[in-house]
């Protein structure tokens, strides 16, 4: 039922209050005539609190408000959304017509854990540091952590262009831009043009409303969820989730909520979980939603509240430092579901051995930095291995098949003596390429 009202009694940041209204429900969509959209966030007696998605600059006390009688929805059509760009309220921002399709809620319902299938199949990114030691399983959620000053857009672009699934299965990418700078937007528009047939974008720019920004991840996930229910495997890539958290803080403070840690609201964990938990594998014949969220981390300190809570929610992490994945901190929690089962049996052992050898080498380097001379022949081999590993395996600007990634790992492991690799003998004998001392 539509209710129209023409009097706003309180304007407090983006929160608008209307008094003397009945029949309005929580979460309802409201239209501010000639201004934009709002969402009902609290009802107290006959006072309705709305959150205006476009802020409140220019809102008049005589503003005409129409309560629509339904929760906030967006249009979806699997045929016509590919190659399109939407904004934070799900409307086209590419000067093309509105999508004709079904209406879906922005924030979907919670998936029944009993109806989730086990992660199966993986997404090959072509980047050895991901596919080898940190294989991303379909239905997984994983953040890329980076310094605020570091630009990882090249890596994201690579993932959008290169990502693939095995066999003939349908695959698409949903890109979410949260508070994108204009320059970044132009960059990603070009990426979209390269992969238009299988990519859709939802973008909120840095100079646009932070409240709309809060919708971007959910719109991405709602699109992805619909595509997945129809049988597609969907990769959602979003950047930058720190801007999501900051927007949440802004909105939460405006609502007068008590801040929790570092000024962020107490429900930050639950909010992030509502997004990342939308990663799902519905099981064949239906598809999956995989989420990669880029997250700036001040000082690269993983105990920063946003990175830390994200770490608890997501299934691993891929920290980047100076254009290279910081492999010692990288982790894919779900890789065990596919590694060695859907991939080569040597996949797990060789990658574990390489990472563990690299850890050893880093400890030796520390010794060197403190002025000690490394003389032991095995130690020297470790250092040599580390150099090669860094120069050939870790750089992100590559596109290798998984087989080639693993072969490369064995080639590098050949630098080390067999006995220090801690790999089952059968596998070692069959694959190790070094020379016996």
């Amino acid at each position, binding site marked *: 039922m539509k209710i129209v009202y023409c009097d706003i009694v309180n304007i407090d940041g983006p929160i608008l209050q209307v008094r003397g209204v009945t029949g309005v429900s929580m979460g309802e969509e409201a239209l501010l005539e000639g201004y934009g959209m709002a969402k009902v966030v609290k009802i107290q007696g006959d006072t309705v609190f709305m959150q205006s998605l476009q802020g409140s600059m220019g809102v008049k006390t005589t503003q005409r408000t129409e309560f629509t009688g339904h929760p906030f929805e967006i249009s979806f059509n699997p045929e016509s959304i590919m190659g399109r760009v939407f904004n934070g309220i799900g409307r086209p921002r590419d000067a093309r017509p509105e999508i004709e399709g079904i209406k879906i809620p922005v924030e979907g319902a919670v998936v029944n*854990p009993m109806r989730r299938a086990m992660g199966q199949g993986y997404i090959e990114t072509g980047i050895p540091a991901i596919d080898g030691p940190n294989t991303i399983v379909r239905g997984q959620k994983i953040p890329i952590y980076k310094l605020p000053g570091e630009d990882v857009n090249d890596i994201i672009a690579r993932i959008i262009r290169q990502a693939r699934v095995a066999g003939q299965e349908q695959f698409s990418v949903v890109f979410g831009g949260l508070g994108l700078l204009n320059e970044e937007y132009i960059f990603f528009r070009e990426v979209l043009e390269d992969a238009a047939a299988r990519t859709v974008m939802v973008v909120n720019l840095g100079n646009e409303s932070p409240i709309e920004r809060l919708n971007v991840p959910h719109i991405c996930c709602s699109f992805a969820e619909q595509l997945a229910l129809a049988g597609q495997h969907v990769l959602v890539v979003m950047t930058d989730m720190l801007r999501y958290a900051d927007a949440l803080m802004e909105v939460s403070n405006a609502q007068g909520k008590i801040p929790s840690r570092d000024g962020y609201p107490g429900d930050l964990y639950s909010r992030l979980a509502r997004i990342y938990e939308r990663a799902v594998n519905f099981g064949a014949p239906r598809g999956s939603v995989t989420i990669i969220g880029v997250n700036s981390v001040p000082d690269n300190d993983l*105990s920063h509240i946003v990175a830390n809570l994200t770490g608890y929610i997501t299934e691993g992490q891929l920290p980047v430092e100076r254009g290279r994945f910081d492999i010692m901190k990288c982790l894919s929690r779900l890789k065990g579901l596919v590694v060695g089962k859907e991939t080569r049996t040597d996949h797990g052992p060789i990658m574990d051995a390489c990472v563990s050898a690299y850890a050893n080498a880093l400890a030796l380097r520390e010794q060197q930095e403190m002025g000690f001379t490394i003389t032991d022949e095995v130690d020297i081999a470790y250092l040599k291995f580390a150099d090669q590993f860094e120069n050939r395996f870790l750089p992100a600007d590559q596109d290798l098949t998984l087989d080639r990634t693993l072969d490369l790992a064995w080639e590098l492991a050949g630098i080390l003596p067999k006995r*220090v690799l801690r790999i089952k003998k059968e596998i070692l004998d069959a694959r190790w390429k070094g020379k016996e001392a």
Partner: protein
Amino acid sequence: MKIVMVDDNLVVVDLKGMGGKGVPCMMNEEAFIGPMNLRGEVIRVRGTHADLQAYEDTTGLMVGQDATLTGHLLEVELGPGLIGGTLDGLGNMLAGYGDFLSRGMIVSPLDRSKKWKFEAKAKDGDAATGGSVIGVVHETPLVEHRIMVPPLFPDGKIEGIKSGEYTVDDVIANLVDAEGRLREIKLMQRWPVRVPRPVSARLALSEVLNTGVRIIDGLNPVMLGGTACTPGDFGTGKTMCQHDLARHTKVKIVIYVGCGERAGEMVELIHEFPKLKDPETGRPLMERTVLFANTSAMPVAAREGSIMVGATLGEYFRDMGYDVLLLTDSLSRQAQGMREMSGRLGEIPGPQAFPAYMSAYLTRWFERAGKVLCLGGSKERRVGSMTTVAALSPDGGDIAGDPPTQAAIQTAKVALILSRKRAAARLFPAFDPLECHSKYLDTSSEALTRFFEKKGLPLWLDYVRAIRGAVVEGDRIKSQMEILGERGIADFEYRKYLMGETVQKGYLNQNTFDENDRATSLERHYAMMKFFVHLFDIFPQKDKTSMRRLQEELLFEITQANYAADYEKAYQAILNKVQEGGR
């Protein structure tokens, strides 16, 4: 009762209604809110207004809609049919829902139409009281579900009991009290989840929980009926460790509460457990397990419910005389849920905005664990236990500064602290041997000695001391080496360092993917400790390089021996080799 305010999951209702007297209302009373019947609970009363905490998303609720009170606290139904189930935080059976969780839908954990074969163990005229076992239902091949008189029933006599096929709602017998009043006994009973179930007596702990994890069973033992916490930053293998405990710990019943954590991990349990076999009987593990899947995307208010419902189920099976393991992952999420709600209520925040009562609350919850003489079981001396192992996820990985973690470490007798450093070096389980502690080594030392003597493993505690000593020494020298370099320390100190490393990598490190290494029986564990203690004695004292080469070689062989079925032979072979080489 009309709704007067909705703010996220806080719903305020007017108890006064239409001008009449106020509706009576009880603190923590269960309520149903709005036309969708969203479940909730009274969390505060102010004059004629009651604050309800809705357990579900309140989208669509309107002021002026009705809410009803149920007259009782939040309860859970207990009876045959729980085992093998996956429940949400409020005790709904998740199998009853579609792809998405629909709001306002309640699915009882017990199948109402299923008929169970009840075998009466008591007969008419038998004396009985609250807690008395009057018969059994073979719920799964692994669990004989003992049907008990509900705890609060008075002393009386059984009447009208008969074996047969019954649904959980059928009356299977009556209890007639001294005044001749009849009370119906069914296969199911209800219990309010926040109230600990009564017992005849609490008993001193006397046995060790066999988890199969060496760093626990050896260096940091948990007593059967005891409490432990496993705090760890993300990526340190906290959840994996809980999964392993669920699989391998030698107990009758496992209750696993996924509280505010990733759905993906629950899915793994849901899919893996039916396939995994109970090591002793070869039956599917699910036949002795109940899972709770309160995932992080579910409404925060139901999170608290999950650990309470889990504890209630645990106590129920404990009351049958079983050993129960209650695993919770993670308590931090529960505490954070409490913080969210406390903030919404406008309560004065304590440290890091957690409510002041958080620590006391966690203590009360931990205290539901224990070894007990079951209610109604004094005649047959029915003893049951519930052991609690709770994971925590400290904010920022800051164990010292995280209030819920500190509260848990204070209360739980065993703290198993996961280390990021060990996890990064792929040494799993990543418990830090120097940070972990078990207070039972002090408070239950006599019980421990008696226990291991009775098991025929008399030197257990001596071995543990030797192994712990090697780790501590190894670590001390390692830190010296970080300052002085390898050449800065004497060869005999370097030997100690190598021994410490050997224990770290060869003993503490366990491979969950290897069937022989992932869970160590007490016997195998004993043999292994014995091997290490011998190795400390006979490892030759030579120059650093030769010792290191030998240690590298040994470590490789120890790892292979850990994977071997015939461990005695494998360890002996290594000792022989060292002895020969030393000559």
